[in-house]
């Protein structure tokens, strides 16, 4: 069976670095930190960690969510609509004339509308069941993000959410690409969205000792993947959306093709609920499967956008896995963790990082790993420290790994006009 090629024709992004693609990209290339102190915390005792890669000054447009509906949907749904709108405008997909049943949406989210669940739980406890809103359930369910996208733009094809913790968006993109490869959809709006800045989620991640909690007073220095002084991840929020299309059809309609998705790998560690397998028995095959599907050799990869969350064990495990897959070439290619600037967007990480991968290809620029002053022992790859670099890139690999021992690797290729 001949598989269709998959084109990326639109991008949308928001996170602590900005609320649109250009701001996010330009600030990343400039090596800025999007991590800041969380404002207006009433009771600091309830927040073990008080910093995050926060989205700032955002209000969704009336056109996407009318005033009366705004309070009815968790903020991760606002982000998804906002970024889908940006990506769709860039792609001009709405002018393509595709059958609405051939346009789908698959969106990843790790925790969905968790903050809305917290709020409703308070109402329930204080006022009883009769005061729980009929809009409570629709406000938080993960698939309301693709659901609202379908309603806004009349996309009647496949529509579902993916939830695989911090690999959610990457799995969503992999599923979306498969739909197009198999010819079941002509286009899919995909990616991930996450917004769980709340004391309770922080308490949970903090209890796992996963969060960096020593830099409440210097937030921009807290996320420092591969650095010897790293001590946990920094929570981020935001969204990254891609418009994927059947490449032949995109070409036929004269769409600007930004890149191709040529490989996807997905595995499980089958090892531990939260710790990565120390010998990379999940992540190594994951990267290899993606390379095999892409039909390329390890030496063809120019840049790896690493999972690199800034945790002591995770960064070493990934570094070792990269070395196992790439051998000597591991030292020649560039690696970077953009989480050093965005914080960890959890279920949206693979979305915004795919956006970085594609921009790296189209702009010939690799965004840096900031706060990397002294690599820790064992972290001896070229992590593109502190400054972005210019480099002609043909193939980029993105890693996303999640709790539950789930792994996903996506490979993007420069579109060379044929």
């Amino acid at each position: 069976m001949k598989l269709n090629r998959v084109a990326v024709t639109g991008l949308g992004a928001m996170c602590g670095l900005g609320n649109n693609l250009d701001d996010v990209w330009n600030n990343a290339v400039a090596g800025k930190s999007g991590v800041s102190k969380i404002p207006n915390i009433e009771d600091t005792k309830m927040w073990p960690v008080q910093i995050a890669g926060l989205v700032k000054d955002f209000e969704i447009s009336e056109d996407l969510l009318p005033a009366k509906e705004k309070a009815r949907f968790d903020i991760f749904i606002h982000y998804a609509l906002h970024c889908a709108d940006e990506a769709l405008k860039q792609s001009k997909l709405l002018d393509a004339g595709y059958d609405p049943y051939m346009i789908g949406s698959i969106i990843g989210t790790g925790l969905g509308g968790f903050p809305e669940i917290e709020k409703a739980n308070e109402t329930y406890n204080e006022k009883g069941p009769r005061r729980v809103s009929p809009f409570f359930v629709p406000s938080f369910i993960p698939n309301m993000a693709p659901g609202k996208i379908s309603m806004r733009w009349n996309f009647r094809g496949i529509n579902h959410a993916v939830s695989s913790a911090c690999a959610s968006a990457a799995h969503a993109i992999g599923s979306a690409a498969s739909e197009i490869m198999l010819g079941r959809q002509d286009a899919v709006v995909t990616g991930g969205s996450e917004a769980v800045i709340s004391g309770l989620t922080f308490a949970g991640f903090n209890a796992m000792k996963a969060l960096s909690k020593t830099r409440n007073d210097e937030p921009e220095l807290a996320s420092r993947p591969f650095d010897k002084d790293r001590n946990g991840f920094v929570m981020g929020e935001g969204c990254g959306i891609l418009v994927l299309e059947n490449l032949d059809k995109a070409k036929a309609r004269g769409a600007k093709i930004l890149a191709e998705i040529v490989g996807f790998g997905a595995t499980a560690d089958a090892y531990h609920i939260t710790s990565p397998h120390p010998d990379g028995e999940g992540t190594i095959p994951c990267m290899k499967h993606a390379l095999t599907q892409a039909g390329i050799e390890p030496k063809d990869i120019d840049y790896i956008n690493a999972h690199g969350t800034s945790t002591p064990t995770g960064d070493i495990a990934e570094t070792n896995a990269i070395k196992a897959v790439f051998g000597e070439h591991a030292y020649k290619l560039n690696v970077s963790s953009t989480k050093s600037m965005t914080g960890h967007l959890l279920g949206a990480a693979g979305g915004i990082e795919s956006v970085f991968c594609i921009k790296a290809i189209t702009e010939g620029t690799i965004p840096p790993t900031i706060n990397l002053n002294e690599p820790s022992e064992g972290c001896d790859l070229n992590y593109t420290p502190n400054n972005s670099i210019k480099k002609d890139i043909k193939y980029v690999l993105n890693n996303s790994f999640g709790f539950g021992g789930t792994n996903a690797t996506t490979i993007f290729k420069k579109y060379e006009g044929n």
Partner: protein
Amino acid sequence: MEIQDKVIKIVSEATKVDASNIKSETNFIDDLNLDSLDMVEMMMKMEEEFGVEIPEDKTEDLKTINDVANFLKTAQ
């Protein structure tokens, strides 16, 4: 404030429809395009604002502003 005026104010705030366009005979579903979930939420707001309980089997009869105002007058 008259009960009906208060009802209109609550409905206006919830629906973002200007209060001057909401009359006694305004129908929630036909005129304000509320769906079944909107109606549940609207009745919850009335319960909260007026401190009454609207029995579930009663809500089906409350189709207009006037219906609600009349119900509230007797319930209070």
